[in-house]
């Protein structure tokens, strides 16, 4: 197992260099000069342009710029944002807890509903429940996030006034946020009602961000369960007279989980992509909106650094998922 982990970690290195190169190249391939964008309609003199070019290192050849960037990255320096002038590293870690908190909640929501929905659909294959659940999953998967979010806001925040419109917590509450996770910080603050407010603010964004993973997990669980339910050992279990609950819950679901976990791992990318729209609509101060704004402003250091950090996160999550295979399926662990 240790060798397996080490070999997986070693594959990180070329991936890391590759991601660094892609993130460096991606933003530069896009048309648009960050200095011109910064100057806007106002424009600037050639002398001022040359001065700023030199300041940002754009007067250097591309390979030199990449080398400087790479050596910076290795030393933990991702550069400073052109716009806010603050270190990319500081900005990312100030915003990332909000995205992580939302993504975890969305994933838990998707799992809590998606797994049972998939199991129920599989054991009722072809019946009403199966069709209803799978049609709903298809709708959920196809729903444009911005439309779904606005619909929920209008109904639950506007008309019914059950949930707040946006933000992470009521503005009434104000306390230090050492972890950046609002649920934890609000509990730690000891202010009455703060935690409840944080939970209420999480409900709609969680549903919106969790909808697509929920649909994917439900469909994947259903198809994996169907495959397993057709196996000989399930028939044997039935013949032995085991209860349906035990067969489905223990024998079938555990074996059906491997492909489902793969999907969960891959959903991390989807979650981060979905977070961009969800965060914008719900004024959620995470990295999604930060990245989009930076692309439009051609804020090279933020786009490069942000992409790199996100890629590392996705790699770490997928590594963790691979480790989990071993926990669920001892055959993989022994290999």
């Amino acid at each position: 197992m240790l060798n397996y982990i080490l070999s997986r970690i070693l594959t990180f290195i070329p991936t890391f260099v590759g991601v660094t190169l892609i993130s460096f190249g991606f933003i530069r391939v896009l048309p648009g000069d960050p200095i011109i964008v910064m100057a806007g309609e106002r424009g600037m003199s050639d002398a001022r342009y040359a001065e700023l070019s030199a300041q940002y290192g754009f007067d250097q050849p591309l390979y030199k710029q990449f080398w400087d960037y790479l050596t910076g990255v290795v030393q933990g320096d991702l550069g400073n944002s052109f716009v806010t002038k603050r270190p990319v590293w500081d900005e990312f870690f100030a915003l990332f807890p909000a995205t992580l908190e939302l993504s975890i909640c969305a994933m838990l929501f998707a799992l809590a509903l998606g797994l049972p929905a998939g199991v129920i659909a599989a054991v009722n294959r072809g019946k009403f429940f199966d069709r209803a659940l799978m049609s709903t999953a298809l709708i959920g998967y196809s729903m444009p996030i911005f439309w779904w979010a606005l619909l929920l806001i209008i109904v639950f925040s506007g008309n019914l006034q059950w949930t707040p419109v946006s933000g992470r917590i009521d503005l009434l509450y104000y306390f230090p946020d050492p972890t950046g996770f609002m649920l934890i910080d609000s509990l730690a603050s000891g202010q009455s009602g703060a935690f409840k407010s944080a939970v209420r603010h999480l409900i709609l964004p969680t549903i919106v961000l969790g909808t697509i993973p929920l649909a994917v997990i439900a469909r994947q669980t259903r198809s994996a369960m169907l495959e397993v339910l057709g196996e000989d050992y399930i028939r044997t279990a039935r013949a032995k007279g085991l209860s349906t609950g035990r067969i489905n819950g223990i024998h079938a679901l555990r074996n059906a989980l491997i492909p489902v976990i793969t999907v969960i791992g891959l959903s991390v990318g989807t979650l981060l992509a979905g977070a961009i729209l969800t965060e914008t609509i719900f004024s959620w101060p995470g990295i999604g909106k930060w990245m989009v704004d930076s692309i439009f402003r051609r804020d090279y250091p933020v786009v490069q650094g942000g992409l790199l950090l996100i890629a590392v996160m996705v790699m770490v999550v997928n590594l963790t998922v691979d480790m989990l295979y071993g926990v669920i399926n001892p055959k993989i662990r022994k290999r």
Partner: protein
Amino acid sequence: MSIKTTLATGMLLATVGTSAMAQSLVYCSEGSPEGFDPALYTSGTTFDASSHPVYNRLSEFKVGTTETVPGLAESWEVSEDGLSVTFNLRQGVSFHSNADFTPTRDFNADDVIFTFDRQGNSENPYNQVSGGSWEYYSSMSMPELVSSIEKVDDYTVKFNLTRTEAPFIANMAMDFASIVSKEYADAMMEAGTPEMVNQAPIGTGPFTFQAYQKDAVIRYLRNDNYWGDPAKVESLIFAITPDASVRYQKVQAGECHVMAYPNPADVADMQSAEDIVVMEQEGLNVGYLAYNTQMPPFDNANVRKALNMSIDKQAIIDVVFQGSGEIAKNPIPPTMWSYDENTVDDEYNPEAAMEMLAAEGVEDLELKIWAMPVQRPYNPNARRMAELMQEDFSKVGVDVEIVSYEWGEYLERSSDVDRDGAVLLGWTGDNGDPDNFLAVLLGCDGVGGSNRAQWCNEEFDAVIQEAKTLSSQEERTALYEEAQAIFKDQAPWATIAHSVVFMTMRPEVEGYVVHPLGGHIFNQVGLSE
């Protein structure tokens, strides 16, 4: 903001609870500020969060007007030759304090000199701090204009200029000229954290900065030692809400008191809602179509005028601005002094336009219209505008191709002297001075740059250059009216529209004034019980 202050204020708010909230004004802002040192940035979002609540300037724009009034300078004198301006500073003005800094002295001449020296002097230790790009200082030509700044005494500062510059006092009221504390800057430099000047601002303004969480919230408290009229609310909160529909929902739900930039499509609904107040004012902007006056046949003023007569501007206002704009006939907006009411706009008359084109011998004309890829206050949908113009021009036999580029490319390529085609663009004023429109956008110096019509008319240029040297607003007005007449006669642009700015708020908000320069200012805004 250190954890210490955050904790202390947090505990204070926790104990004060709901009663404190009753005195809090919540503004749903459209985005995060880039930072809190206004001289480093150029966006209105940043100025709303920094220069307006936290800082003051030597002169100030009277809220709701473009008129300059005394600020941190009680008065000023311009020398007879116009080459020096002496400011007499207000005494007894104290800077804010925070957990890391408590001022030991009041505001004085050293702060004024430091404010400008760090922007213009590369030897100043703060010149390169926080990225050190002083774009406004540079784009307002301050490095060329100011030859030196002298401290006459602790409360008198003299600016020596290289030329007479009538808009100088208005420039001093602009956001980049916000006065920062030299004592604070020195203390932060000594502590090894000079960037704190940008991150935890210390000013003399009506609100003190309390805390900021990027993309979420900015908090301010009333400055009880403010030298002017104190703010009407105890605290000011910016709830950062980028989506306009969500901002509106928040105002309706009572989560915000005021919001800016509503969706044009929502305005009618807002105006008919009982518990929502909508204020409106023409923005200090202009949207235009600039021909390349150096390329035939657009070097012929009659051809340009004929094209202008083919554009149905009312249809553009209805469709593109959805009513939230008005037809522009001059290159400066009607809220600006010297705007010439008597200008007669080109009549929409396709038949006459066709005849004019034929009289000039122009046949089978082809024209590229450049449509901006971004939304701007002066042009909410350039693509749609270009399509409407394409249809209008086709009626007079002009074949239009619409082109667009990524925004940075667009700005760069549209400046080229040999650009092929007419470009849709616009401008939002900086300081309420007509020179800021006419010289920047139409002066000979701007050819190949911000003068997208590439239009250099000697007569026009002489008039605006002369106006710049006069201090009498009356005399300047006469010259600017003359300039507007030349502009209308020569038609380097088709002036399209001035957008209308809407502010949406709850009925309990009192005293809000829409500022023509576009800022959102809450110094004198209160809440009724």
